[in-house]
């Protein structure tokens, strides 16, 4: 059976011409289905770049990434959009829409899947928000939520569409220890129950303890 994420020979550069700088060198990585893989490394080591490449948020310039059976190198915009819809992305900053309530923000994660997915959207959105401990805050605008609560809304938005892979960029940075662990437990449970694969960038030592695999990057290379 094909692995959900197979990365091979990926290189990446930033900048143009003279200022062009290589940030990733010959990255090879295979992620197992249902596992929690953690990327660690100093800032500037290229871990977020790798995450955004795997999440179809950047175009692949060299190498190959097979995401859920789809080759990302040279993929069309339509293919990339189709891939993005099978992912759940949790950003470092919560990136919630300031004009939308918690429910509406989560709804945006469901609405992208079309009319069929929208049946019983209220129950679905309320359920996932409750599961991240926000049952009392369903109709709050982000401005009325704490940093940790906003991040939990963002987690709910990433999970509402039942993603096959969750990509998370320091999701627990804005969370206190307790709720950070709750989120990780949830992701691990999803891995066990639904085979949801998680690739996460984090510095959080408690999460490292619970990771199935830790991949360490340094200056754009995998060192372990």
């Amino acid at each position, binding site marked *: 059976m094909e692995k959900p994420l197979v990365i091979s020979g990926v290189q990446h550069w930033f900048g143009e011409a003279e200022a062009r700088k290589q940030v990733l060198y010959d990255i090879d990585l295979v992620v197992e289905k249902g596992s929690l893989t953690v990327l660690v490394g100093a800032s500037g080591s290229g871990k977020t770049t790798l995450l955004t490449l795997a999440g179809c948020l*950047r175009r692949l310039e060299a190498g190959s990434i097979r995401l859920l059976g789809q080759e990302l190198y040279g993929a069309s915009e339509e293919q990339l*959009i189709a891939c*993005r819809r099978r992912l759940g992305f949790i950003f470092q900053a919560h990136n919630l*829409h*300031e004009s939308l309530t918690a429910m509406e923000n989560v709804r*945006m994660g469901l609405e992208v899947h079309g009319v069929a997915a929208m049946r019983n959207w209220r129950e679905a959105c309320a359920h996932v928000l409750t599961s991240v401990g926000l049952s009392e805050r369903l109709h709050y605008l982000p401005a009325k939520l704490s940093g940790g609560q906003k991040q939990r809304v963002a987690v709910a938005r990433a999970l509402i569409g039942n993603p096959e892979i969750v990509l998370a960029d320091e999701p627990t940075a804005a969370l206190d220890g307790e709720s950070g662990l709750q989120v990780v437990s949830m992701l691990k449970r999803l891995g066990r129950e639904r085979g949801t694969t998680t690739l996460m960038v984090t510095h959080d030592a408690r999460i490292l303890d619970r990771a199935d695999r830790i991949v360490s990057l340094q200056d754009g290379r995998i060192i372990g």
Partner: protein
Amino acid sequence: MSGFLEWLLGRLPVGWLQLVHNKARFASALAGVAFANILVFMQLGFFGALMGSVALPYQQMDADVLISSSDMNTLADAGPLPRQRLYEALAVNGVADATPLYYGKLDWKQADGTIRGLDVFGIDPAKPAFRFLRDNSKVKVLTLADHALIDIGTRNVVGDVLARIERGEPYAFEAKGRTLSVDGVFRIGGGFTTDGYLIVSDQTFLRLFPQRFAGAPNHVLVKAQPGVAARDLADRLSAVLPAYDSQARPVDVVTAREQAFQSTQRPVGMVFGFGIIIGTLVGSIIVYQVLATDVADHLKEYATFKAIGYRQGFFLGIVFEEAMVLAVAGFLPGVVISVLLYRLVAKATSLPLAMTMERPFIVLFGTLLMCGLSGLVATRRLARANPADLF
């Protein structure tokens, strides 16, 4: 409103929620769109007033076809025509009647020493050339020498002179070395080239303008027999009359030709024409600025939606949704304020400035179009960007 839009769009009305979230920005955006609307409405109003004031005297003519000199551009600049043409016209099949119209200009010195320019029509009192004279009891007075009727719409007349004339008090003033007695009123209304109109008999006209002579009126007004189309009659008359000195055209055609002449050949028409273009441009730029700023401010949110898997069409939809809300919500105050301004300017200038039935629809359609195009341009930046580069 939110519920209605959700039903209409079949999705969360993100654009609407985004607009009302920042009330101050929404208000200023609406003010911008309303201002752009007012700008265009005013220019259209001025242009419409020019067209309307050109048409005013024609609309009152008791005629179907107008015979004028072949070099005529405007009602006022038509050269004299041999009176012979009137008799030739009367012999044409389908002509019910024909009457001459003499055209001149004189200055009316007001009590305060300022001058009003009046356009003078010399008519045959037995066959009045204007519709409003049909049941005007004062027409008979014109048969007396040096008697006149005045346009009650004449601009900026000092004191209550017009009101007194209307009540039946004759008013005398000197012009062209003669004393004219004004005994009654009619209504045409001034335009861009004249403050108002004066009607005298052909005999009085020739006394006021001794260089003119009875054998050469400026126009001949022709009435068609019942059932004869003005266009057919004009063709028949054209076939008979010599083209080197005269032309016969239906009155509405003459009106349209003078309107075209005033708007394309005369400075005032071109100024207002350019005003409409500039107003549309300025309005478009305002709308574009509003939408482009909004897109720029929400780039992070849009990038997130793009990362989730939304297509470019979704963002276009949001911006169009905003554009349509702004276009409609800005249009309403725009049209109300414009109507009030029309009244104000019409009162101050005595020009026929008024809202027409079709103008609001034209402006609303134009606003929707400009808002839509602006939205299209404003979202272009989003189209090709990597979502990761937008955070």
